[in-house]
């Protein structure tokens, strides 16, 4: 028994050696959740964090994730200081922990917004939204803003009850929604504008075989969101640093080629009200039941 206790002590000691040697150094942690609708694959955020570290004079550590839940929770607990997160994730983070949006990125056409499209095959008999009744629709997945939330709300506003009037499936990706449409498994597919172009290598016939039935409302672009309890000073510093980077030639080139961002624009919470109303239309309750 004594020996067992001794062993246990050694283990605890050993682990604490690991545990306590980490240096206390001030770093700013940045999360990056790329939009699925962007044009470039973001594998590493290092170039961006290096520039930010230089601008801010504090070390910035970045990481990427394909799903936003971790980053939103990290913002909530203060483990992540700021992040590039999709608009819907911002609304969730704001609801949960008063996280605050400071900037939004501009896309190729210089806009801070994008939208999604309803695609149909050219040979189909669907020419207006009312024809969709009784047809099969492919959404992307239930967590997708451009592949479910906005298109779904659009259909509801067109007077279609998505639970009763149509049959729908979740394709699991914008590419797969397009594929289902081309293969004839569904009659309508919802994707960002323009998935046909992004995946033209895989589906070269997409452009000639399909056409756009309509577009959804505009969706705000990716947001730069800071954690709720960040000091005003740091908040401004991050904002200025990002704007500065976008101004320099080197920085803007890098943002363009690696991150598909063509500059930043100041954003306020009100810009994201459209997400909240859309979520409401779709009957998505952002608050937990008390």
């Amino acid at each position: 028994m004594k020996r067992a206790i001794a062993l246990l002590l050694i283990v605890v000691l050993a682990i604490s050696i690991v545990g306590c040697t980490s240096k206390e150094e001030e770093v700013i942690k940045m999360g990056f959740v790329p939009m699925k609708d962007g044009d470039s694959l973001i594998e590493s955020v290092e170039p961006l964090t290096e520039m930010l570290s230089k601008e801010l004079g504090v070390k910035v550590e970045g990481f990427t994730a394909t799903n936003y839940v971790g980053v939103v929770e990290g913002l909530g607990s203060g483990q992540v200081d700021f992040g590039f997160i999709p608009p819907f994730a911002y609304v969730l983070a704001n609801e949960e922990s008063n996280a605050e949006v400071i900037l939004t990125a501009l896309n190729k056409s210089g806009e801070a917004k994008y939208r999604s499209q309803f695609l149909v095959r050219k040979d189909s008999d669907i020419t207006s939204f009312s024809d969709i009744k009784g047809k099969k629709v492919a959404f992307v997945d239930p967590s997708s803003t451009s592949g479910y939330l906005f298109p779904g709300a659009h259909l509801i506003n067109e007077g279609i009850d998505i639970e009763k009037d149509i049959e729908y499936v979740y394709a699991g990706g914008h590419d797969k929604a397009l594929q289902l449409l081309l293969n004839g498994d569904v009659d309508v597919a919802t994707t960002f504008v323009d998935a046909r172009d992004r995946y033209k290598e895989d589906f070269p016939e997409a452009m000639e075989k399909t056409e756009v039935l309509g577009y959804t409302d505009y969706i705000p672009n990716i947001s730069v969101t800071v954690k709720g309890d960040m000091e005003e000073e740091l908040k401004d510093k991050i904002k200025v640093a990002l704007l500065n980077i976008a101004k320099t030639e080197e920085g803007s080139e890098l943002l363009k080629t690696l991150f598909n961002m063509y500059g930043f624009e100041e954003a306020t919470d009100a810009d994201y009200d459209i997400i909240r109303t859309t979520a409401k239309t779709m009957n998505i309750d952002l608050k937990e039941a008390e």
Partner: protein
Amino acid sequence: MNSLKNYIAKNKIHKSLYFLGAIAILIFLGFKVEFDFVKLHKGIPSMLNLFQRMLKPNISYGVEAFDKLIETIQIAIVSSILGVLVALPFSLLIADNIAPNRYISAILSGVFSFLRTIPSLIWAAILVSIFSVGKFSGIVALTIIAFLIALKLFREYIEGIKENQLNSIKSVGANSTQVLRYCVLPHILELSISIFFIVLETNIRGATILGLVGAGGIGQIMWRDLNHLRYDNLSTLILILFFTILIIDVLSLFVRKYLIKKAVRFKSIDNYKKFQLFKIFYIPILVIILFLFAFSSLNITYDRFILGLGQGKDVISRMIRIDPSCFSKLIEGILESFFIAVFATIVGGLFALVLSYLTAYNTSPSKGVSIFLKGVINILRTFPPIVTAIIFFRGVGPGPMAGAMALSIYTTGVLTKMYSEVLENEGKNIQASITTTGATNLQSYRHGLLPHTFPTFIRLALYRLESNIRNSTILGVIGAGGIGTTLVMNIMWRNWEKVGFLLLGISIMIIIIDKLSQMVSNY
């Protein structure tokens, strides 16, 4: 006398060396996964906060989710039976000790090891191409997974059949089919039932991935609730899964007990013969019904199927043309995944050794403790690692530590459950023979049961290691370290050439681990 003393002393030194070695490895891994006690301690309040939000399950939502559960169970049962049935003949081909041809066995087991490393996301991409979205894709995906798991379990079991048993049958002049019929199969058929239940459980848990192939079921709404941060709904679903798995557990216990009883129930040889005849008829019928059920959920035309096959072929042929441009990313990610998995396996293993003692009803100091811990362990197992990872992520932030902690907890749950069952299946005599010398209950575990079952424990742990590596590739999705982020992004972008390369890297790692664990378990 002297030599005995020497032996004891040497043994002690050996043991301490092994132990120190293990500690050194653990410290090294701790550094690699950025384990940090201070961070963990500081993160506790925010983790508790998130956990508390899960403590308010939304009962009315449970009713809504019930349909989805039934769908999931249906898919899981069908795919588990199909998977086990298909795995059986293949396992006879690849088990080292009875394989008819060494080369076929080597080639097949290589292929299956490779297939086992393919993450479900990639199966999804290929299957959706071929069969469109829907139940059928889900059944096929889970059947493949069930097949691969069952195959591995069967194979290990067959290879565990003692050489002298096989030889004794051969010595009476049995040819290889007769060896199969009278020595191997009787073992396996009993085993099939328990493997079926293991696979069924895995498949129900795997339902969380079913949503990805658009197959519906409980996985889809779980993923949705997670993405909407509806932790109240999420915990409801986890509770539902918990009870489902509990029921399966009880059912499995019941069925296995029934089978054992039944084996001695035949009073006359006639009865036995009748039963055999009955078996010959009802098994094929059952199989046919299952296949019919599976295919009835498939509603695509022949042309569509051919079109899909072509697209599936395109994806695969692009994957074969690997693009090694992301080499440094691969090495970095794979090493991180590897460290996370090994850390989780060792930590989980250590906890499991202690917890199993308290959990197994034949060693546990009290029945109450045993039952309580059984409940806790089942809950730990039901929490999908990704949800646990999010909780830890909230506490300790980005990086491999969150993933390592989440997998450690999951591994603790699974290993404790498996190992405590091993302990429970041991005969009373080992324990009894030691307690008669005046040893305490703990000592009888430490010096009797533990050394006796330790090889099994190591085998279970190595098996967990492999599935931990696969799990750790998924954790990258939320930013909890490992190769997952890169892999998922490339799948999303349909960069199949890069996906092919990443897969190759992951497979090589898993196959090396597989070989190592075979060496260790033989040793």
